[in-house]
């Protein structure tokens, strides 16, 4: 039996964010939100571990404007329950504040053996929440996990590094941070979606977590976000494959992109 915490961040869908034509700032309000990609891989991995070894999977989620629907999505995939902190104050949260709030929330959940999270988030891709949580709990963390096996004495993880795969072992409890290589997240069936509506979502207030003012004060402030513009010619070529191949070959030669 293993009890697993899965951290789920709700972010904007970065593929649908458009910059403001003049200021170049991202128009975040106009883009739909979703569960950060790799966090779904983390949830999937947690569910697979549960299916094999038994236990409970608890989703935790903190943010400034948490959408219930996305929590239900995680429950429909198979998480047993969810703990949520949604507070406008967290809009300016940096990695430090987020980790402190998550850790405090995880303490409320009670017993657990493993924390799983995505290695990086869709919007920030800072690779920081996993290592920060592990530091708070003074336990090992393993990022870039591409395969996980539970053993009697702990967990064995295949970790993708620059030079190859490092196979490492850690004792439990531990934090594992995973990327998209580890699995393909399941799509919930209609039955599971219906079952999810009865699963508990525990709403916890930020003030109930006993965090100090210092813990809630971001150490890094975002001053500005701007689109990096790249100008492309955007010429569309359409037609029969023979035509396209001919035109393309000519372009490559004429523009001096390939040399004789």
């Amino acid at each position, binding site marked *: 039996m293993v009890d697993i915490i899965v951290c789920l961040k709700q972010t904007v869908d970065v593929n649908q964010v458009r910059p403001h034509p003049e200021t170049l700032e991202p128009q975040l309000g106009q883009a739909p939100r979703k569960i950060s990609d790799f966090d779904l891989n983390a949830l999937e991995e947690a569910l697979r571990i549960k299916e094999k070894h038994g236990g409970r999977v608890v989703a935790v989620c903190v943010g400034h404007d948490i959408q219930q629907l996305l929590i239900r999505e995680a429950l429909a995939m198979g998480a047993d329950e969810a703990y949520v902190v949604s507070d406008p104050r967290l809009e300016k949260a940096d990695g430090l504040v987020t980790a402190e709030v998550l850790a405090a929330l995880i303490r409320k959940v009670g017993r657990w053996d493993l924390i799983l999270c995505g290695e990086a988030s869709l919007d920030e891709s800072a690779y920081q929440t996993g290592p920060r949580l592990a530091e708070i709990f003074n336990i090992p963390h393993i990022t870039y996990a591409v395969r996980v096996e539970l053993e009697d004495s702990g967990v064995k993880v295949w970790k993708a590094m620059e030079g190859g795969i490092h196979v490492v072992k850690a004792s439990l409890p531990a934090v594992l941070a995973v990327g998209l290589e580890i699995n393909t997240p399941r799509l919930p069936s209609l039955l599971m979606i219906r079952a999810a509506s009865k699963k508990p979502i525990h709403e916890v207030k930020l003030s109930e977590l006993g965090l100090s003012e210092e813990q809630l004060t971001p150490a890094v402030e975002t001053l500005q*976000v701007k689109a990096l513009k790249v100008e492309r010619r955007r*010429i569309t070529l359409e037609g029969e494959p023979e035509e396209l191949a001919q035109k393309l070959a000519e372009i490559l030669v004429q523009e001096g992109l390939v040399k004789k």
Partner: protein
Amino acid sequence: MSTILVYSENPHAAAEMLVAARQLAPSLNASTAALHLGSMSEQDLKAYAAGGAELVYHVDGVDAEKHGPACVAEALANVARNVDAVMVLVAATRLGREVAPRTAQRLKTGYAAECVQLEASSDGLVAYRGVLGGTYQAKLLFKRKPYVVSLQTGRYQPEGSGSQPRVEKVSIEITAPQLELVEIARAESAGVDLEKAELIVSVGRGFKKREDLSMAEELAKVIGAELGCSRPIAGDLKWLPEDRHIGLSGKRVKPKLYLALGISGQVQHLVGIRDSKVVIAVNTDSNAPIMSEADYAVVGDIYKVVPLLTENLKKLLGR
């Protein structure tokens, strides 16, 4: 005077960080030093010297590969505290990206990941980094010291004349949780510097089978291009070595020609090809994001267009 403390498990990357640190040092009123863990060779020292290091703190008992990131973070945080570091600068390698946030948490401070540029301002350190899939740049201000930062490598050129840095031994008792390294399965490596390639033919999930990549290989051979790919091709499918994957979590390339075959062009891929001079995409879906981010968007089936293109080029180029 305070210190900018630099760390990387790769001394050449550390040398680059030292160059960045030395540029910031006057405005932060700080000196610079590197931290070295584990045994230290002449080569290592030379690398630090090339970065212009005057001082290297040497902790012998900790080995990054063997003990894992928590122990490295403990050593780094301890030395940072002892020398009253104003900033901890780590190269954004895979290990660096694990060590830096853990160090920041230990020091109860902020962290800016994989920065591309740093500036000292009167309010504190300003860091620039890619966000929202890398297509946007954020400007961040640190409100608390020390500043913990990881910086992308390949941006600074170490060329210090290399007078020997002073080495100061530090002993630290490691109490952080260790990992046990069972084995390292060395990856098949492309052994190419994709960042330096002039021409890149890149493949995505539009290829249905591994064998089909031969179409792209043949084309690449004819024009003398390197082969690149999207993350799923290297990561999930393992059809190509990891070091050919381009994008946010892979290589950032700047070829004259980037030819994207069967790649949808999600933002995380696009960020890696932004500096390409000419982008050509071949995709059956005219609405794929890459089609509006290309100089030439070829609406077509790679299975039909690519072999024909190779034939045409062979003729035109006389190969």
